[in-house]
């Protein structure tokens, strides 16, 4: 008779937001931190923060961009809390059973995790998540020129690692 209550609407909004973005944000977190459990925790933190801030979100950027930004900040906070990096690679199959593309992926993944944080963030947003440079710069709150520079530096470093693997590049 009176329609849905405000709190119920907020709940529905949030659930829609979660369903539409949880996989993407999890994937992004996983790519950033390289650890499935940590990525799940991080994803949960991102959505809790989103839930808390949903009413303040002014929709000046896309929802996905906003979530990416929260994820970046949360990930940085995680890093500060746990100074040592806790990288657990996915169970690496025996070398013999590896296809060439798997090998390239693992090499790139390892090299990516060795990159400095700002370079990795930039690279993951642009190359893995497929954001445009302008969108990624918006997420990281840096000028597009700086973002491009960071991606270029990351590409240079990763290229060196991949060049050591036959047929990777």
């Amino acid at each position: 008779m009176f329609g849905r209550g405000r709190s119920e609407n907020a709940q529905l909004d949030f659930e829609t937001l979660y369903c539409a973005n949880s996989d993407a944000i999890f994937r992004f977190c996983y790519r950033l931190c390289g650890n499935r459990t940590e990525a799940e925790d991080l994803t949960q933190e991102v959505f809790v923060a989103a839930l808390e801030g949903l009413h303040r979100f002014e929709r000046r950027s896309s929802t996905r961009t906003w979530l990416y930004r929260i994820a970046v900040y949360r990930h940085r906070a995680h890093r500060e809390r746990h100074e040592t990096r806790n990288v657990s690679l996915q169970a690496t199959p025996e070398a013999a059973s590896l296809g060439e593309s798997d090998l390239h992926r693992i090499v790139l993944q390892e090299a990516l995790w060795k990159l400095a944080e700002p370079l990795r963030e930039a690279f993951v947003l642009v190359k893995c998540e497929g954001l445009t440079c302008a969108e990624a710069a918006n997420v990281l709150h840096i000028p597009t020129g700086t973002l491009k520079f960071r991606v270029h530096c990351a590409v240079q470093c990763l290229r060196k690692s991949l060049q050591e693997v036959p047929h990777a590049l």
Partner: protein
Amino acid sequence: MRCNSIQRKLSTWSNSDHSAWEARRVEAHLAECGVCRAYRDEVQRMDSIAATLADEKLHRDLLVGMAPVQKTLTAPPARPFAARQWAPLVGIAAMLLGVWLNASRRDANSAAAAAVKHMDAALVEWAGYHERLFQAEGAHQEGELTLISETWYERARNSWRITSPPDQGGDRIIRDTGDPHTALQPTLEWVQKGPDGRLLHAIEVAPQRTDPTLADFLAKNGLLDAAANAQDLGRTALSGTPAEEISIPTYDTQRTYVWLMEGTDVPLRIERQNLQNGVWHTSWLFTIAVAERWPDSVFDPATLRPSGGIWSDGQGTGHAAVAAMTLAKRQPAWKTGNVVFGGYLWRIPSDVPKACLTSDAFKAVDAWMSQKVARMGPLEEFGSVGPNISAPGTDTTQAFHLTFEHGRATAMLSFHKDADGIWKVTGISDAKS
């Protein structure tokens, strides 16, 4: 364009927007350079691998874990009984307050929006102007020319803070500006290079320009009282006195220094450094020279010659010269020439007759250009060249290198100063080699 510059572009090529002009330049370079073609292929392969990295799905339903938080956050706040009685009055008061706040916020918002709009418009105009300038200058640049105008607009939108170094007051903010590179760049006009290729002198010769100038920027930011300093600053030569150094903290991998003219807030030199492998490398160096005033003509042809303003030293360091205020009274002849060829290059045909002294002069220029275009295709780039320009007097000539789609030519434009003291084109011919 150099390979370094091309490869920087290629690293983010598929994720960026590019002007048709930029794409053409990159394609032209790729057609000639096997190293850059290989680099492009490598980046593309890396992109395809990167897109499949950790392509995992979330297995756990995190919503379940978040349910308690969700419940707390979305539950309506409990209201005490007493509050309920006052609720209608509080509601009315809140509504009135809301109306008042909204009205004042709307005023502030609309003023802010207008200011932003105004700034945006100015920046677009500014960026466009200089992009054209560099397109023109790229044609006759002696060394390598690195085009950086693509990022000016975006950089200018990000506020940078010029602060004093920690040992001199720490975070004292001298000025909030746009990116100083952007803010100071546009006065780039003339450069004199020494025999070793280093910058000796730079002059801005643009008294009649309508886009924002360094003087405007300094004045607007309170760095300079333009009216009071116009005379004096024009005569202040760089004396080699030590300038105050200030740093702009930016990002973890970049830092910028600005040197100010001693005892003033006038920037003389801006240097950006990037951290690479733990070592700071200079990536950009902007030198701002304060030029002497020339009594009548815009420069002394015996000692100055036109040149591109941004160049690379071949060691990966880009250099740019930006200039300070001069009090030149007249627009130099080469600028009129730029209007003529710019009219053909940027398809602004109405500009060409305006730059010619008579309709016959325009017909001559148009016929000459038509003949070249028929033979070599559309004009792609141009640039003025040669020392003998804007000499004192009422007549002068100026050579321009022109690059067409299928060939090159050098045009000699002749100019005459009209009654208002403005250089106008009187004729055109093929330059003698």
